[in-house]
């Protein structure tokens, strides 16, 4: 038996650290421009609406619907071999942002179907996942 290889570990960038810290608390946190209020994800330095670099982090709802998906049948990293086949869903969140996560439903995802976010316990961070609403 060969030794099991762990999946790649997320390495939070400085600008995105509060996102990872939020996941550990069980929250999905995104950047909110402190100047104009625009939400943004993935994290970046400037607001593309007003170019402000002032940021507040805000926990948002993980509710949304399925925008697209894929089912992985081949492991490009040995750490995912035991998960095959696994499904990745792109979610249109009700707040107007998108998120990618693992699919927890039993059936094939249907584009447009409502979902809710589930943070599946994991180390060092919970795994962002979605289930039928």
């Amino acid at each position, binding site marked *: 038996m060969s030794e099991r290889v762990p*999946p*790649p570990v997320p390495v939070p960038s400085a600008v995105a650290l509060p996102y990872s810290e939020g996941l550990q608390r069980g929250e999905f946190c995104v950047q909110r421009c402190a100047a104009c209020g625009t939400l943004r994800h993935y994290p970046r330095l400037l607001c593309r609406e007003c170019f402000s670099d002032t940021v507040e982090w805000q926990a948002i709802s993980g509710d949304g619907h399925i925008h*697209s998906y894929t*089912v992985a049948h*081949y492991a490009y990293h040995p750490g995912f071999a035991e998960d095959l086949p*696994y499904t*990745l869903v792109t979610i249109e969140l009700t707040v107007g*942002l998108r998120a*990618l996560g693992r699919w927890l439903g039993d059936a094939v995802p249907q584009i447009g179907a409502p979902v809710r976010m589930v943070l599946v316990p994991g180390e060092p*961070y919970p795994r962002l996942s979605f289930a039928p609403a």
Partner: protein
Amino acid sequence: MSIADKACVTGIGETAYVRGSPKSAFELQLEAARRAAEDAGISPRDIDGVIPIGVVSGIAEDFIDNFGITDLRFSALIPHGGASPTMALQSATALVAAGICNHVLIAFGRNVSAAASKAGARIHQMPQFHYVTEFEYPLGNCAPAQIYAPMAMRHMQLYGTTVEHFGEVAVACREHALLNDNAIMKKPITLEDHRNSRLIAEPFRLLDCSLESDGGAAVIVSAAERAKDLRHRRVFISGVAVGHPDSPASITQRPDMTSLGLGKAAPRAFRMAGVTPADIQVAEIYDCFTYAVIRQLEDMGFCAKGEGGPFVADGKLRLGGALPTNTHGGLLSQAHIWGLNHIVELVRQLRGHGGRAQVPGAELGLVTGYGDLGDGAIAIMRRE
């Protein structure tokens, strides 16, 4: 000032395309570059601009050292993956049109046979993929097949694009590869073979995916006036343009994930060249995945959005069809040389040197590039 028809591709060079080359990426790049200069009929020393493709092989200093170039006037790196070679045509065209350079070398070499260099491992070193690496790789979104699959899945769901449509692209490329002695794939395939090939990342099957291959390719872009005295009939760059998709570093966050940068570039290139898609006689379209060809045909205006599947279904892309495409076999069946092999093939076709895959009387054609998460480029060329 328009740069239309101010530049010509005067030299083309390729190495053998293989799996498991004993040569380094730079050796392959240099070999292709030397052949391109020889093909143009210039001394490698006459090259006065260098745009090396990728950052894994030789850079300008290496070409100065190896070619004895005494007066290199320009070099730049273009970090947009498979769009970079065609993007480099835009830079080279502008450089020679402005009188900054006479002969610009665009050269690429790669050796990806080592496991550590496979796509799933490689891209996570690249800054263009930093969002994917930080937020999606840990979930299992590792390699282009997985990262691009949601675009194709959504296209299928919105527009009714089918497995057979993807298969037709794969079969057309394979048919053409069988006519090319420098193509890696040697066996014919059918639509049924495509459908029966194993799933990689739905909707992509193995035969929807391009090859991992080793080799080098290069072209020389020269000022149109200089090109008169060189070896071959002139092939002019009549229109060239670049475009980036919205949310270029994340497909997940892209407002319309079925849109690509090429949709912004193509109208500019056609306007510059003064032609329409209906005038194009041969196309070399970046085919990292079968889906990418279908989507780019829509972006270029060969058909309306969503109609790319039916457009290819009747064999239009095959030799003898209305739009012979990837006449060398493409990334799907010749080799994956980041599409620099597509530029080489277009020039070959327009010179009438297409061999068994020659499109009869081809005078006007185009080449596209597709890079990273959807960056696009297009060059429309015509022969003298």
